[in-house]
């Protein structure tokens, strides 16, 4: 089968699936597709959708392909789902997830040490939402449980791989060469929750200067 023959088959599978379909799964399901690059098939499908003004698209998420509506139709769908959509994560939850994402596998105590607050409740909620999972035990005192992020985490944030997350700036980068204290203060202030556009800009400037 070539790309044009495969298109409807791949489309059917992705449409009927309740989660992202990985290229490996597609390969298993479509025996006729020997050696075809599914990325090409997906591109061709998205091209078709775009050209015929359709409301759907196929996105790459959590290592697989998933059919979604296009963002410009969110307003209407939101009305349909009124009251049934999941709440946004709290700041505490986002902070905790950021730490787990970059330091996984990590224990509760290590998360709490970085955040400076007890994080047991937040971790329990994240477990229940399946954004994190218990992935093992640490070597340290009491062999504490270690936590890692899940495929659901990738889906929730619409990313394909953990490396798609924004990287935390390295401490060295924040320090600069020890001369850029003003910039660091500036960078710190731009991180505030109530930041506005202009502060965000100055933050980026600070970044570029320290790169230069």
């Amino acid at each position: 089968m070539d790309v044009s023959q495969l298109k409807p088959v791949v489309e059917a599978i992705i449409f009927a699936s309740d989660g992202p379909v990985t290229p490996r799964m597609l390969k298993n399901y479509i025996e006729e597709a020997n050696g075809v690059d599914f990325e090409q098939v997906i591109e061709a499908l998205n091209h078709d959708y775009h050209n015929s003004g359709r409301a759907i698209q196929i996105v790459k998420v959590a290592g697989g392909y998933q059919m979604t509506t296009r963002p410009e139709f969110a307003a209407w769908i939101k009305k349909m789902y009124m009251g049934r959509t999941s709440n946004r994560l709290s700041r505490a939850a986002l902070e905790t997830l950021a730490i787990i994402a970059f330091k996984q596998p990590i224990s509760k105590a290590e998360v709490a040490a970085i955040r400076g607050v007890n994080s047991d409740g937040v971790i329990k909620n994240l477990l229940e939402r399946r954004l994190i999972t218990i992935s093992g035990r640490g070597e340290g005192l009491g062999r504490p449980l270690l936590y890692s992020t899940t495929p659901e985490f990738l889906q929730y944030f619409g990313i394909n791989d953990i490396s798609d997350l924004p990287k935390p700036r390295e401490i060295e980068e924040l320090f600069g060469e020890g001369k850029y204290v003003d910039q660091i203060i500036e960078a710190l202030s731009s991180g505030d929750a109530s930041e506005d556009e202009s502060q965000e800009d100055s933050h980026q400037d600070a970044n570029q200067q320290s790169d230069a």
Partner: protein
Amino acid sequence: MIYRVQLENFEGPLDLLLYLIKKNEVDLFNIPISEITRQYLEYIEIIQMLDLEGASDFILMAATLIRIKAKMLLPKPPVEMDEEEEEDPRDELVRRLLEYQRFKEVALKMADFESQRQLLYTRRYFNQQVELEPHDWWDPQNSYTLFDLMWAFKEILQRAPKVTQHNVEQIPVTIDDQINYILKQLDQNEGQLLFYELLEKLKKRIIMIVTFLSLLELIRRGEVEVTQSSTFGEIWVRRKRWTSLN
């Protein structure tokens, strides 16, 4: 009636400190500890009145700040020739503040990702009750976690009849008994059973608990394996060596 007053929303002591440093426009690498500590204490005095539980994390940091100040006030011992320059007592705190700041930035960007993704709708509300073919359930694509197993166990415990009075009595079963029970049940059912079927017939919570522990023991020994067909789906318990016995 309790009134909860939401002050500036700080996620913890580090968050509050970053705020105070920014508000006072002071140099992060030369924090005026006494002034920042004074403002910090003012704040926790308020939260202590409102939320004693939440205040404990903040009090630990107050103690740390005061200890740093005390260290800075103490005369330093004479520096020996070979010794490295003495560390500023504030360094450890600055390091923690910077590390926390990094993740706070990432969390903000993740919130953007979250709102972008929430504009995309997928097909959902699929019927979770997919028919299971008893011999076709093993799919390496699926994985279960210990958390799934604990979750299922909690649900079964909730289904168990509630006992309101309590008598002290000897537990009538042992782990060994229940290991035999599980293996017997599995053998009578072609080597596999749904997790809830295994525990459903047991009427007492304590026997369920002992049976659950026995199941964990069997998994540890590698005699039994556990798998789940889908998220929130049924959990199967399977005798590992069953097929080879036939």
